[in-house]
């Protein structure tokens, strides 16, 4: 099956096209078709996964189309190794759950079919991204993911906030892509190829200068920063919660944001060759994780809390991967790669579950604000328990899958004290805000009775996916049990046994941290023995600061967006006034110059012309009486002149002697003619008047 793995990606594309062109009008058929395609994809992924397991994760690569495009090879191919296989499983599993769930969640939406079409397109892009075997292709799907996320986030585009969020997501990730493009240009220029293996070979072989490699790595990482919502481009993700909840689950748990982590994991050989670059990655990861977790502590919107938790967890992964790169570059052993990718997988399951559970809650109470919820556990059993399983998992409670992956991350940071402390702090905060959420939502007394009375458990079509994901949230991590010598770790390292035995001290520490976080939340929000309000009052500045998300949005608005708009307006005015003004000014000067010339023309040149005209007119006034209108008179005139010419021509008269006489004759003749024709004119005037009358 592996050679045909591309079919997995093509199935959702097929479903997208089918829905758009044929099935759009039949809503149920659309959704059914879409779901069956992704389930089929899941089955195929499973086969691929098993086959890859059999190969011990060894890469399988095939190109089915290579063109040398103006000097650079552009390939269209697939690369299936352990990472790809895991991602395929994750994407199809979560994708299938989300789609099934959407049948219930989007039931009455007027654009139901379109929603499934978009979901399919998104799944296609994501699978393509995962399967790609070179940087060019990954970039293509990368952008497609951006587009479809835009479409999905602003799915309810009538809502201004949704439309804004979509735009924000697209543009913010695009800023990251900017760096990615530059990274690609550097790859193309310095490596001369886009193919992963080719680039990695060059990077590892030291054929690229170290400085360049660092810069390249950082630029490529920029793409990941945008897509995975890392600091400083993390602002789009919480806003993106404006999309329908299944979309949030799909985009922000399993796929789009995972793409950034995937990119870093995929290009790990580059990062593993540059300690500085990898350190930048790790630092960014830590900062992001910390910022997001701290914001998550005080938010009230159920989805936003999850969003910040996502950002925080992504920061974890990035940090782990960065540390791995750093250590490897320095020749040290590290489990960061295992940790990062493992957490990517487990996180996908439990975060998907959390979002879907949140969706289920929202579906029931029609609000996002946890202050308006409470006591829902009585009404929504399945939702509550699956949600709590996921929360335990994310908090890192033994033996749920989150525990194992988080444990690995903590293990990664062992040699880096700052990171170690940061990680534990974040783990504490995570446990706290997750259970704050749980307690406020599901336990205690209902705070809004109207909503509470209205609440009900979601239909089966929505709860079954929850259960499935809950099972995965519990067991998926067991694959990486430290007691297994040929478990997850050796799989992602292509069979190479990179394994550290269980570190019981570490496990203990992280468990204590998690449990203490949960306990604090329990005390504050369940038992209410510590007043949350008082705490907020006491640390008012910090609370406000966190509540307003560190003022990132405002900062960006002030520092980036406003100036850009100002510059844009300025440029526009510049264009209209200065450049166009210069053009129009030139035109004006030309016109002025023309006016001067016109004056000159009218009074001097035309004066001369008109003067001669005037003279001619005067002459004409005299001569016009020759125009009697009678042809016979003309004939006579001609004959006279012919005779005269003949006289001179044949020298019947000597001009040199006769000219005074001739002049006299001519002058007299002229006067006579004039007089004569005047007479004729007067006589004819009467007649011609009559003839005019007769003519009419």
């Amino acid at each position, binding site marked *: 099956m592996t050679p045909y793995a591309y079919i997995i990606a093509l199935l959702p594309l097929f479903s997208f096209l089918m829905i758009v062109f044929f099935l759009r009008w039949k809503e149920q058929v659309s959704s059914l078709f879409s779901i069956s395609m992704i389930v089929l994809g899941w089955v195929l992924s499973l086969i691929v996964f098993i086959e890859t397991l059999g190969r011990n994760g060894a890469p399988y690569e095939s190109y089915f189309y290579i*063109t040398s*495009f*103006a*000097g*650079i090879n552009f390939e269209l191919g697939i690369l299936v190794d352990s990472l790809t296989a895991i991602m395929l499983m994750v994407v199809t599993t979560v994708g299938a759950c989300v789609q099934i769930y959407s049948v219930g969640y989007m039931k009455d939406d007027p654009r139901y079919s379109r929603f499934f079409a978009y979901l399919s397109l998104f799944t296609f892009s994501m699978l393509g991204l995962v399967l790609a075997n070179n940087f*060019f292709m990954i*970039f*293509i*799907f*990368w*952008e*497609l993911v951006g*587009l479809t996320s*835009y479409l999905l986030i*602003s799915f309810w*585009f*009538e809502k*201004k906030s*949704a*439309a*804004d969020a*979509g*735009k924000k997501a*697209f*543009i913010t990730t*695009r*800023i990251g*892509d*900017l760096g990615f*493009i*530059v990274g*690609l*240009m*550097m790859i*193309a*220029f310095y490596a001369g190829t886009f193919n992963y293996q080719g680039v990695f070979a060059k990077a590892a072989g030291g054929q690229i200068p170290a400085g360049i490699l660092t810069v390249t790595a950082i630029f490529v990482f920029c793409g990941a920063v945008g897509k995975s919502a890392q600091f400083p481009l993390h602002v789009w993700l919480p806003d993106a919660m404006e999309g329908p909840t299944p979309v949030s689950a799909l985009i922000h748990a399993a796929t789009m944001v995972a793409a950034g982590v995937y990119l870093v994991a995929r290009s790990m050989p580059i990062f593993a060759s540059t300690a500085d670059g990898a350190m930048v990655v790790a630092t960014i990861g830590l900062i992001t994780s910390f910022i997001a977790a701290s914001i998550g502590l005080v938010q009230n919107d159920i989805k936003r809390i999850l969003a910040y938790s996502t950002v925080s967890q992504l920061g974890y992964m990035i940090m782990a991967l960065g540390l791995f790169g750093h250590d490897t570059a320095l020749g040290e052993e590290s489990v960061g790669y295992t940790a990062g990718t493992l957490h990517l997988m487990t996180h996908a399951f439990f975060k998907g579950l959390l979002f879907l559970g949140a969706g289920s809650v929202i579906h029931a109470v029609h609000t996002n604000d946890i202050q308006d919820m409470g006591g829902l556990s009585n009404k929504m059993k399945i939702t509550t328990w699956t949600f709590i399983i996921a929360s335990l998992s994310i908090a890192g409670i033994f033996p749920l899958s989150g525990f194992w992956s988080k444990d690995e991350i903590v293990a990664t940071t062992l040699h880096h004290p700052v990171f170690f402390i940061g990680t534990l702090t974040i783990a504490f905060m995570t446990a706290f805000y997750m259970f704050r959420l749980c307690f406020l939502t599901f336990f205690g007394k209902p705070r809004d009775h109207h909503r509470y009375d209205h609440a009900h458990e979601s239909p089966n079509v929505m709860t079954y996916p929850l259960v499935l994901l809950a099972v995965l949230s519990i067991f998926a991590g067991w694959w990486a049990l430290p007691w297994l010598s040929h478990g997850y770790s050796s799989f992602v390292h292509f069979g190479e046994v990179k394994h550290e035995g269980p570190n019981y001290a570490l496990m203990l520490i992280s468990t204590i941290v998690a449990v203490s976080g949960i306990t604090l939340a329990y005390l504050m929000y369940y038992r209410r023995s510590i007043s949350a309000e008082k705490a907020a009052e006491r640390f008012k500045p910090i609370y406000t600061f966190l509540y307003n998300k560190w003022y990132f949005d405002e900062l960006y608005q002030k520092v980036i967006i406003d100036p*850009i*708009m100002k*510059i*844009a*307006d300025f*440029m*526009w005015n510049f*264009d209209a006034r200065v*450049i*166009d003004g210069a*053009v129009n000014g030139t*035109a004006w000067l030309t016109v002025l110059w023309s006016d001067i010339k016109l004056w000159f023309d009218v009074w001097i040149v035309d004066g001369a012309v008109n003067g001669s005209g005037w003279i001619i007119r005067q002459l004409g006034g005299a001569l016009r009486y020759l125009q009697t209108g009678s042809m016979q008179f003309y004939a006579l005139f001609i004959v006279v002149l012919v005779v005269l010419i003949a006289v001179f021509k044949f020298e019947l008269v000597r001009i040199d002697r006769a000219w005074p006489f001739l002049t006299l004759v001519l002058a007299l003749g002229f006067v006579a003619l004039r007089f004569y024709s005047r007479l004729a004119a007067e006589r004819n005037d009467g007649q011609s008047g009559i003839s005019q009358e007769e003519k009419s």
Partner: protein
Amino acid sequence: MGILSWLYVVPLAGMLVVMCLPKDNKKLIRWTATLISVIPMLQSFWLTWDYFFNYSGSAAMAYVEGPFNWIPSLHIQYFLGVDGISVPLLFLTGLLSTLSLLASFGIENRVKEYFAFFLLLEAGMMGVFVALDFFLFYVFWEVMLVPMYFLIGVWGGPRKEYAAIKFFLYTLFGSIFMLVSILILYFTSNPHTLNMMTLIQSGSTLPYTLQMICFVFFFIAFAIKVPVWPFHTWLPDAHVEAPTAVSVILAGVLLKMGTYGMLRISWPMFPQPLRDLSFWIALLGVIAIIYGALVSMAQKDLKKLVAYSSVSHMGFCMLALAAYSSTQAISGCMFQMVSHGLLTGALFLLVGVLYDRAHTREIAAFGGLGSKLPIYSSIMVFFTMGSLGLPGMSGFISEFMIFIGSFSVLNKVMVGIAVLGVVLGAAYLLRMVQRVFLGEFNLAKWGGLTEINARELVTVVPLMLLTLWIGIYPKPLNDLMNATLTNLVNLMAR
């Protein structure tokens, strides 16, 4: 008479036919003109097809007609031929002409003159792309101006006279520079000739100063057409005032003539000045990219936004042209020309569709059209995405190649700044999409808007397909041009 002559003779003949039709039978005039323009369209299709299979392997001119001595006393020859850079543009010209004629059915006053002018315009455009003699080239170049002037000046919007005159004077201003350099070339060549092919070979043997003068003069002439910042201000006015179809042609074909001229004439003819000025050309390109994008962002008029986006997009072409020694960049430039023709042409068509219904183009006046006009909105969003360089569409291929190509030969920081244009492009286009199509729908105001109709669909669907094709499978287009471009790059980098 070979096919290249027919390419421009048919529209010319068509113009005469249209002029002979009865004035009042508008339907007849419209269909006649459109059907006549189908002939050169099919010819250009066939040409592309045949060129691809039979001639694309070599850089030599194909379908050559002549050189026949035409006016021997002035050494003017009748000399036509095409190669890999003119064929795609001929294809574009043929296609866009027919589509724009189809989009012109809404014209109601002076129908006959309109369509006659349009066919004349098409003849001129075809002629420019096939001419290999400077005299012919210049004649066709000028022939286009006249119908364009009238098309804008008679059928345009409220400030049409201003726009038409501005366009005319601007281009004429450039043409004069071109004429001067042509004359310089003519009088310095020995024996005197106006044959481009010969002059390309001999141009580089002139004294350096003279080369520089000719290069700069040609550059000004072509830059105005492109338009390169700061010669661009005629473009927004002309675009905004021109009727839809004329905007399409203006953006789709006329702008390409500038870059085509550079690639065909001044670049290979004067490699030394090109080498010395390439930094400045790239700088102009980058300024145009950023500046055009920023100014687009400030626009309130839909059409003006698209017009300024043209400035930005053509800036990419200039950047690529500055990277003359990279085949990728030059192919990217050609791709960008074709792609911009398709995308911006389509965007203008679509803006026209909306304008026909709403009679306004003010962005702020709309909102939420997505729910009322789903098909129209989807198509518009499609082209917007193409325009901002989404993979899978032609714009991506071209921009990507330009970046890769110019990164390898130009100042790397400058190219990095140019990449910013991509984000700014996304910003202004998405802002536009958001404010026009998303958000709340004003039912009272726009309740009467109707969905895009079949004829209008016919005009944009081919462009969609081509955009997708080039975006997904650009190999044929690349193969079509590759030999020619390699040869050109060798000439330019000599």
